[in-house]
Structure formats: structure tokens, C-alpha cells
């Protein structure tokens, strides 16, 4: 029996969960294409697990191809763990309180074998007060920021993260909050950073969000991180909800106070739909509660075509309190520094007109009747 490639990848994402298949159907297309999809979705580890447990039968050459892709994924993950030891260690030594998000933290703390949870970058979160110093330290360590901030001070007020890369292509996302846009602004990072847990890696002790913060991070990433949702991000939600020591009362309180109800509900419904895992009883009320239409509209800014047309950036206005701050945000978006424009369109003359066309198109679309 066979499945199409995306159905196959979805089955792989559910390997080992109660709703997962005991025997996986092989994809109907070429195995090359299936392995490519598994690598892109970062599911090679779960696929290898399925082979070792006898849930997925492959020919010798198919197994070799899968193992080769998985070895590449693991080399990339290990390389970023080296980055964590070097960069995370340097930030700690400089007195910066830094929390490891997702990647190595999820792999080592919530999966039985970290090989099941590949990652291809490193996400570190610091307090807004440590933001500038951390960016400078990264530059000193050879990591160049890919996009300058639109205007001075934008990062600390409205920003989510800045991507830095070294000469070897290794990537560090330095976070101030968990996600771009309105939901990222409603989250209180200082509360997440006040409840950290330790884990050890490479002979050093690092900090991560505690289990409750990690589940919230996983929900935010599964619902708002990618469109369509990343299967591994959806698996993270299930994996943490089932295996972590979540303080469900605090999870519900944070969800309500940070207006993440629609996001958490979306994440758990996606787990239910794709991985066939029922919504866990402790979050049942959160998932089934009615949510204000405004929050549902904001969620839709992260999905489909709206996301591709700067939906989250424009929806951010809804979460910025006060006219002056809203004006500051709009000014930074519409009249960013020339350096920012040049980085957005390398090799082209910096143009405000091109930039203004984005919100103009968005406004035009949103005014159509029925949209």
C-alpha cells in the first residue's frame, strides 16, 4: 500500500505517538523525492526510528539513501551544538542570561533520542536589556547580522529576533521574544526568562525555557512559525505535551493573559488533524473556548497569502499600545534607514516606493467587500 509523499511525511511525523500508524505506507512517487521531503521537513530521524522499529520496510538502497540524508541532518545539528557551546558559552561568560529555544533544548530534553529531532540553526533568547550587548558579542565572534533593524531602537521595542550567520553558514537567531507580530508583542519574555531550567551539553550547563514555557514556545512555532505548518513543529507540540512536566494552570494563565488562546487552540487542533492525537484533557477548555474575532483575524495574518504579503508585520499595529508608539512603528516600516533598504534588495537602488507598495497592496486587498 502506498501514500502520496505529503501523506507519507505526515505519517512519519506521528511515528511513536498513540495516533501514529503501526506500519507506514511507502510513498507512491520516487524514493528520492520522499527523502528530499523528509529532509526538508526534518523528519529523517523519525523515519529512521520507524525503520529500526520495523514500522517502515525499505530496500537496502532506500535505507542507505535515508541514512545518508539523516547523517547530513545530524552533522548540521552537531555543528550548531558546537555553535551553542562556543556562542552560548561566550554569552554566559560575559554575564548575559541566555535561554536556548527549540533545537538542542527540545532534542535533548523532550525526545527519547535527540537524533529524532534535527535542527539547522540555533535560537537563543536574551532579555531586551542584554540585546545590544549580545548582538555586539555575536559580531565579535564572527557572526554577521543579515538584516539591520529598520530604525535605531526598533529591535527592543517591536522586534522578534535578528538572524546572524558566520562564514561557514552557521546560523544564530537571537530572540527578544518568541514570534514576530502582535502575538510576539503580547508575550512577556521577562516572565519566560524568570523560569528557566538547566540542561547539559558538551560539558557545559545551559538554560532553556521550563517545560511550561517550552510547550507555549512549541505551540507558537507550530501555529505561527511557518505556513503551511512545519510537521516537526507540530510534532514538538505533541511530544512536549505528552512527555513534559507542564504546569497546566500556568500554561492556561499565560495563554489567556498573553492573548494566545487562538494560537494554542490552532496548534492543538493541527496536532489532532495531522497526527491524529486527541487534544489532551488539560487544554481541552482552552482549545474549545470561543475566541474574539479580532484574535482570529490576527491569526489569519500569519496564514496563506496574507503571510507572504507582510501580514504579521502589518497586524503588529493591533498590539502596539498608544498612538505615538503606533506612529513610531509605522514610521520605521515606511521610512526605514537606507542601510535596511539596501540589505532587503541587494544590488538594487534603495527605494521607498517599492517598500510602500507592500502595505498599499495589503490595504487594497483588505478593503475588498467580503475579505
Amino acid at each position, binding site marked *: 500500500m502506498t501514500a502520496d509523499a505529503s501523506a507519507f511525511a505526515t505519517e512519519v511525523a506521528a511515528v511513536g505517538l498513540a495516533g501514529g500508524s503501526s506500519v507506514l505506507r511507502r510513498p507512491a512517487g520516487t524514493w528520492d523525492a520522499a527523502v528530499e521531503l523528509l529532509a526538508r521537513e526534518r523528519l529523517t530521524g523519525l523515519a529512521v526510528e520507524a525503520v529500526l522499529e520495523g514500522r517502515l520496510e525499505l530496500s537496502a538502497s532506500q535505507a542507505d539513501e535515508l*541514512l545518508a540524508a539523516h547523517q547530513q541532518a545530524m*552533522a548540521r545539528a552537531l555543528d550548531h551544538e558546537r555553535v551553542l557551546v562556543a556562542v552560548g558559552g561566550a554569552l554566559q561568560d560575559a554575564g548575559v542570561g541566555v535561554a536556548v529555544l527549540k533545537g538542542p533544548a527540545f532534542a535533548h530534553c523532550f525526545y527519547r533520542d535527540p537524533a529524532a529531532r534535527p535542527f539547522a540553526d540555533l535560537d537563543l533568547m536574551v532579555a531586551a536589556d542584554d540585546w545590544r550587548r549580545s548582538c555586539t558579542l555575536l559580531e565579535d565572534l564572527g557572526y554577521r547580522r543579515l538584516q539591520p533593524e529598520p530604525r535605531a531602537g526598533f529591535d527592543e521595542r517591536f522586534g522578534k529576533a535578528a538572524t546572524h550567520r558566520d562564514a561557514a553558514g552557521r546560523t544564530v537567531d537571537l530572540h527578544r521574544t518568541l514570534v514576530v507580530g502582535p502575538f510576539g508583542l503580547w508575550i512577556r519574555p521577562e516572565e519566560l526568562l524568570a523560569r528557566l531550567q538547566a540542561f547539559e551539553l558538551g560539558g557545559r550547563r545551559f538554560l532553556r525555557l521550563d517545560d511550561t514555557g517550552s510547550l507555549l514556545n512549541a505551540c507558537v512555532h507550530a501555529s505561527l512559525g511557518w505556513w503551511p505548518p512545519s510537521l516537526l513543529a507540530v510534532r514538538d507540540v505533541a511530544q512536549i505535551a505528552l512527555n513534559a512536566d507542564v504546569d497546566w494552570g500556568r500554561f492556561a494563565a499565560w495563554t489567556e493573559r498573553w492573548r494566545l488562546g487562538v494560537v494554542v487552540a490552532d496548534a492543538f487542533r493541527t496536532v489532532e488533524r495531522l497526527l491524529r492525537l486527541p487534544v489532551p484533557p488539560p487544554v481541552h477548555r482552552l482549545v474549545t473556548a470561543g475566541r474574539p474575532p479580532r484574535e482570529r483575524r490576527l491569526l489569519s495574518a500569519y496564514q496563506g497569502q496574507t503571510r507572504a504579503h507582510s501580514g504579521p508585520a502589518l497586524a503588529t499595529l493591533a498590539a502596539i499600545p498608544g498612538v505615538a508608539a503606533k506612529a513610531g512603528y509605522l514610521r520605521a516600516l515606511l521610512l526605514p534607514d537606507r542601510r535596511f533598504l539596501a540589505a532587503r534588495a541587494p544590488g538594487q537602488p534603495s527605494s521607498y516606493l517599492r517598500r510602500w507598495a507592500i502595505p498599499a497592496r495589503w490595504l487594497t486587498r483588505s478593503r475588498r467587500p467580503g475579505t
Partner: protein
Amino acid sequence: MHVPRYRRSAHVLWRNVGHEVVLASPSGEGFEVLTGAGGQAWRALETARSAAELTVELAAWFANTPARIGAEVDSLLTALHARGLVERADDG
């Protein structure tokens, strides 16, 4: 006579890749790959073991006799120790 016991060095980063194990030294660039009995030996070295203990364990695992694989286990431990990938449990 003092019999050294070995365990994985705490600073080594590693992953299972099927039956193989990929190792990365934090300060290095490349990777080491342990295949077959090497991978199984690495998993066993989560807790400290002498070469003889490891030999007996691997012999049982691979349905072999300790006499046949003892020399190979010795060389594997020597090589891993020389690269700093395992440490002697009594080194502190």
C-alpha cells in the same frame, strides 16, 4: 594491578545515526563515525567500563567470543582516548 576504566568524555557531542554513531568534538571541525561494534561500544560507555568488561558485553551483543574481539576493543579504546573522545574514569 590498576585496570583503567573508560567512559565517554562529557564534552563530546554525538548522535545515533541508525546503528552508527557520529561524534563531534566541540572545538573541532569534522566528525568521527563509529560503525558496527564501535557504535555499540560508544553507547555502552555511558557508564565507565574496563576494556575487559566492554569486551564481554560486546561479545554477548554480537554473539562472539571475548577472545576474538578483545584486541579490537583495546585498539578502539586506545584510539578514542588518544582523540579525547573517551576519558579514564579515574582521571578525575
